[in-house]
């Protein structure tokens, strides 16, 4: 078994005759197949039910509303025409597309380069820092970057630097304004990049470390350059990682509207606006057909893009029955792999030193926004506004925070995170096992459906979703955001878990079945123990997503529940004078998700790459 080579490309595997079909084991095919199909469907029921209620039904209603809902014109295609004549919509479409496409491409590419750059650095503790920015609520990231880019060079170091540099080239004293209309969207994206880049790098690093030693050296020995190494050696192994990074970031980036709300000053809000805000900022009090029409167009655009993407990376969400895999491999953080491709001698050590220094500089640069937050939080709230950098630390911002009500939201937010992530893990594990090992009729279409469900923007379906929640008497209760979060979390959780479950050795599953285990027994005794990193990763990521949430709290929260991100956001109206309290609150609100991310970082990396790079 161990002698079998792991093959990156399933097509090669099929040609090589190394595919071992599941059905070689067990009792005669027919009866067993029917029982499995029944179990397979049964395990899918909870996930399907929740997604049906929270996603599918509301989407259907939005499509109906876009033709028949109330608005300036009564019915038909009128709402689409009305929506298209609004010039603001053009800005929002362009912004949203850049978020959904440009940002993931940039993060994927730079993340890869960083991974290569750091490949001979064994300092996994330094790389663990990667998990701090990723785990922060976007409201916190936005606060830090709004301080960094503050229009006053006395308060915003980045502005001071940019204006000094521009000054040499003869720009006016108030140029450039990093949060001005022209630069605000790149500024927002840089905050997002800061948050996610290192996670991408760590994932690529883990994948690169699993490339069989020697292959790269062989290519180099034959005179291959770096480009050939990338194309012929690394790419087949990294394609799946690239796909996961890209999808994850596309989903995260297209959901981003927290950053726009917290970072963009009022005068550039319309320049930075994304579709998520357009749908929210309709001019009428009642939900309108126009907003629904915009939502449908948005769904069509993003949906088409994702389905095309999924087609392109078809092999990256592989059907697990088609290949077999070994259990999650030993990883770079457990045993340092010997450097195999380092050139020997003096050249190496000099280059190594340079890289160390450069890496140190990058990590230090990465810490700047957080250091700023800590500084500003230590001032009296009036200090940043009047004096900038030359202030005496006091605790008065924290005192003001204590009186602001923000702290009261911490415990409920944590409770929500725990309940939601536990439920998501259980429901998604059942569905993922079914899709990975039972493959009931229709599961081939599941990938596309789950991807689509993952990208449905909650703003678009908020109205109809309320109509679904109303007869369940969940509206306005704390269970409404719980259910919405669960529905939002399940699709990605199922996709990640399915890949991880599929990576469990086929013979172990087959043996358990032969021993007479029920499917639930196989799941509990074989698959779960083998795939625990993925389960832990999903639970941790889900907790972080819920803790950091702004939009679900905004749309579905109520008198019973306000998430901490909402409470922080409420403090931000006059930003400069609130910066002290905001920064103090931001630091407090960052502790739980950062702790979870750091504790679960190994699981997150292993879980996200298992079943991906093999």
């Amino acid at each position, binding site marked *: 078994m161990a002698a079998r080579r792991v093959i990156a490309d399933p097509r090669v595997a099929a040609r090589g005759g190394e595919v071992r079909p599941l059905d070689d084991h067990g009792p005669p095919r027919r009866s067993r197949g029917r029982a499995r199909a029944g179990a397979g469907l049964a395990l899918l029921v909870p996930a399907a039910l929740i997604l049906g209620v929270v996603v599918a039904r509301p989407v259907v209603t939005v499509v109906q509303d876009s033709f028949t809902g109330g608005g*300036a014109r009564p019915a038909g295609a009128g709402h689409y025409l009305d929506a298209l004549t609004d010039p*603001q919509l053009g800005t929002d479409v362009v912004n949203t597309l850049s978020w959904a496409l440009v940002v993931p491409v940039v993060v994927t590419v730079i993340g890869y380069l960083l991974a290569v750059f750091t490949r001979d650095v064994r300092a996994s503790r330094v790389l663990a820092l990667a998990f701090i920015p990723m785990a922060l609520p976007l409201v916190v990231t936005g606060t830090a970057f709004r301080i960094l880019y503050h*229009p*006053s060079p006395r308060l915003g170091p980045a502005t001071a630097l940019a204006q000094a540099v521009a000054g040499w080239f003869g720009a006016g*004293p*108030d*140029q450039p*304004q990093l*949060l*001005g*209309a022209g630069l605000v969207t790149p500024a927002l994206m840089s905050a997002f990049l800061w948050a996610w880049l290192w996670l991408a790098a760590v994932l690529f690093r883990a994948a690169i470390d699993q490339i069989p030693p020697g292959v790269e050296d062989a290519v180099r020995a034959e005179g291959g350059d770096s480009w050939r190494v990338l194309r012929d050696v690394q790419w087949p192994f990294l394609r799946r990682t690239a796909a996961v990074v890209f999808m994850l970031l596309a989903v995260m980036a297209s959901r981003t509207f927290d950053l726009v709300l917290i970072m963009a000053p*009022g*005068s*550039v*809000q319309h320049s930075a606006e994304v579709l998520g*805000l357009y749908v*929210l*900022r309709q*001019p*009428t*009090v*009642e939900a309108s057909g126009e907003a629904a029409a915009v939502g449908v167009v948005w769904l069509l655009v993003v949906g088409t893009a994702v389905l095309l993407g999924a087609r392109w990376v078809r092999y990256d969400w592989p059907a697990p029955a088609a290949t077999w895999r070994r259990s999650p491999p030993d990883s770079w953080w457990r045993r340092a792999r010997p450097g195999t491709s380092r050139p020997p001698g003096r050249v190496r050590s000099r280059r190594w030193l340079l890289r160390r220094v450069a890496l140190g500089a990058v990590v230090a640069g990465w810490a700047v926004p957080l250091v700023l937050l800590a500084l500003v939080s230590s001032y009296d709230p*009036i200090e940043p*506004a*009047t004096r900038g950098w030359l202030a005496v630390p006091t605790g008065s911002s924290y005192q003001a925070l204590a*009186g602001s009500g923000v702290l009261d939201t911490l*415990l*409920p937010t944590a*409770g*929500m995170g*725990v*309940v939601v992530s*536990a*439920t998501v893990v*259980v429901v998604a594990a059942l569905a993922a096992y079914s899709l990975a090992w039972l493959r009931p009729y229709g599961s081939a279409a599941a990938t596309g459906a789950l991807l689509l469900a993952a990208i449905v923007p909650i703003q678009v379906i*908020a109205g109809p979703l*309320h109509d679904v929640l109303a*007869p*369940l*008497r969940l*509206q*306005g*209760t*704390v*269970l409404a955001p719980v*259910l919405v979060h669960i529905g939002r979390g399940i699709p990605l959780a199922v996709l990640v878990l399915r890949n991880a479950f599929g990576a469990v050795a086929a013979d172990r599953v087959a043996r358990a079945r032969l021993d007479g285990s029920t499917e639930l027994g196989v799941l509990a005794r074989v698959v779960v123990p083998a795939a625990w990193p993925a389960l832990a990763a999903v639970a941790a990521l889900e907790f972080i997503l819920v803790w950091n949430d702004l939009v679900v709290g905004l*749309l*579905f*929260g109520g*008198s*019973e*529940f*306000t998430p901490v991100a909402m409470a922080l956001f*409420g*403090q*931000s*109206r*006059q*930003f400069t*004078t609130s910066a002290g309290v905001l920064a103090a609150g931001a630091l407090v609100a960052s502790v739980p998700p950062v702790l979870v991310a750091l504790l679960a970082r190994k699981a997150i990396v292993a879980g996200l790459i298992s079943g991906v790079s093999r």
Partner: protein
Amino acid sequence: MTGPAVTRRSLLKAAGPLLLPAAGAVPLAAAGCAARDDPVEIFVMWSGGELAAFLDTMDEFERETGRRTRTVPVGEQVRELLRARFNANNPPDLAIVPLPGLIREYARNGRVMELDPAAGRHIPASLNQTVTVDGRLYGLWVKAAHKSLFWYRPSALAGAGPPATWGELVSLLRRAAGAGQPPLSIGAADGWVLTDWFENVLAGLDGGATYQRLAAGEDLWASDVVTAALVRLAEVWSIPGVFPYGPRRALLTQFEESVFEVFAECRSAVVFEGDFVDAVIGRLNAAGRLCEEPETFRVPPVTGGPPPLVVGGDVAARMNDSEGSRELVEWLARPESLAGWIKRAGFLSPNRTVPIGTYPPGRGQQLAAELRAADQFLFDLSDQLGGRLSAGQGRGMTKILTEFFQSVATPGGHPDRPVRAAQRRLVDAARGD
């Protein structure tokens, strides 16, 4: 579909074993059953010092009535948040917002509770009128704002007294800017500052006649008076060197920062905004950061006549029929309830029975008297507009004036074209295109 009780129970049951280890889940689950003594939830747009003052006021309410309150500062996104909460069938008990137009819209949709007419008996009729639909009162004015003031540093005007006409104001600003001392601070990042500028110029143009007709919903946006208002605005905003850190920075400067530029940094001479500037100055004073005692002058009229008086303020509306919201509105309507806030600087009560002596001596009493004595004032226009002109963030009048500011204040453009463009967009927005 199964009954609601079953569904909720089964959901909890499914999550049950997972709930147990979670400490946070206990308050979560307990919150599912509504208690009789739920706190009164109040949406407000205040922040900073004003929010702190309101929270103190609510402490008093809690002490006197034994009820609990929960104040939610919602910032500029109040329209979006209110709509979301109405969609969720879970509106707050009370919203105290400076948006009578929005409250009227909600009232017409049957979403705001009618108030006992007695609630408004101490409030000027013209204010009550802004929150009346079909003869029914839907809002209680809690806070008034005198929005026709310039705040200045006397030493910066170099003995030249405050200007009496708009022309004098413009030439004063020109002189100072020409002398290399940028005189004017403006918080152009906050759209409402720009709409307040526009409203004061418009109100000073033809005795406020066009202003009133626009407020009443007449389609006069294409009129010459609106053109003139935009031209006058462009005249001030396009003076080279008028803003202390340049126009691009001004566009990203918020209201409170603009006050700091004048009174904490002594970087410029004048800032325009309402009586509530006093609250910001009070905070500076308390922190020992006030660089010079402020003085005020009224916004001079553009075409003669008395100086305009534009009034804004915050109005409380009951968003649901809870006992708590009823009690709070009754409490807020009493003249003595807000005495604590009134004694601080930067708060004017719309209640006519509040003795002028309650206000802080000097400027506070003077502004309160000015507001009280005005037999005719104009209510903030942008706060009354609905539909596409409605001045939400990045929308309507806010967006139009922001882009107008951007095009006239940044050097290089002739002001005529921006004026025409802004007016055309106002007309289009008013007609719902």
